[in-house]
């Protein structure tokens, strides 16, 4: 993860890292997760699901901090995050 300015206690803080899973066929393309992801880590993909919507996909694999907002805001129960191993903070 990249910071604009490295916090002084960066070495003591573990930034959580999440992996986002999309259940594509449930998605109705509302865009809530994309719009409100605090890390701007999601976008609507080009692919179509069976209903004709574009399910979201991760932009950068390392951006997700496992905050769970997408999971909570998704009205379709179609996306969720699980905690992955921590990533290194770059200077």
């Amino acid at each position, binding site marked *: 993860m990249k910071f604009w300015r490295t916090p002084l206690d960066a070495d003591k803080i573990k930034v959580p890292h999440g992996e986002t899973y999309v259940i594509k066929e449930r998605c*109705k393309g509302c*865009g809530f997760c994309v719009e409100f992801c605090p890390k701007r880590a999601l976008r609507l993909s080009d692919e179509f699901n069976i209903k004709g919507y574009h399910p979201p996909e991760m932009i950068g694999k390392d951006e997700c901090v496992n905050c769970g907002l997408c999971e*909570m805001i*998704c009205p379709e129960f179609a996306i969720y995050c699980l905690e992955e191993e921590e990533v290194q903070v770059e200077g």
Partner: protein
Amino acid sequence: MITKEHPMTPLLRMDRIPHIWCPTCGIGTAVSCFAAALKQNEIPLEKVAIVSGIGCTGRVAGYMKVDSFHTTHGRAIPFATGLKLARPEMKIVVFSGDGDLFAIGGNHFIHAARRNMDLTVICVNNFIYGMTGGQLAPTTPLSAKSTTSPYGNYEHPFNLPHLAASCGATYVARWTALHIRRLTNSMSEALNKKGFSFIEVIAPCSTVYARRNRLGSGLDLMKFYHDNCEIKNGANPEEADIGFQSKIIVGKFVDKEKPSFIDNMHVGLKRALGDKYIPYGGDDGAK
């Protein structure tokens, strides 16, 4: 990519998903927050029941994997009252819409609040009758259009937190479908509150409310909440009126202690009858 299970799976009837709600509807988000609140509290799911009335939000009962009752229009609260009195150890949650709870069911709401009946009532307010195609609701803001107010609404709408507070609710909060953390926390608090707790969840209806009023999609309404909600915990709910596309005051307005209906019933009858009083289901209050 579906290698693991959605964390809500134990709480939802996944065999019924996808649900019937439109794209960009906010009801699913409210359900998601409610499921998160149940998880947060580690409430045993067999001790929770959901009662809904009729309408879009009325379908919530059908998607939660707890004892769930989809009743008639407006009657969720009295049904829940009976269920709660028969199973006092359970947490009974009424999950329904603004038209259901406040038009046809308005009388039941004010009386349950007056009695301080031990219920949690969650109202998803989308300002309109969604299921029937977008008619005027008791919450439709002045000047908003609906299929039965095609020239703009000229009826004063309800201010739901003010109504709940003035009828005696012990917990009153309002959030939008965007305030997922605060909403979840409020739901947790309400679940643990004795007596009558009420949460209004303002949620987008894209298909009939936003479209008819040229407000874009549900996503645009969520962005509107983002820019126009003002969090005022402890504010006087009387000042929380909602106008058409005006600022929305959200927050926790009331959180007070008052003996609930069940408390008062036991105390009153014990005082009058002494040892002759046999509480329902034995002394522990549970059957």
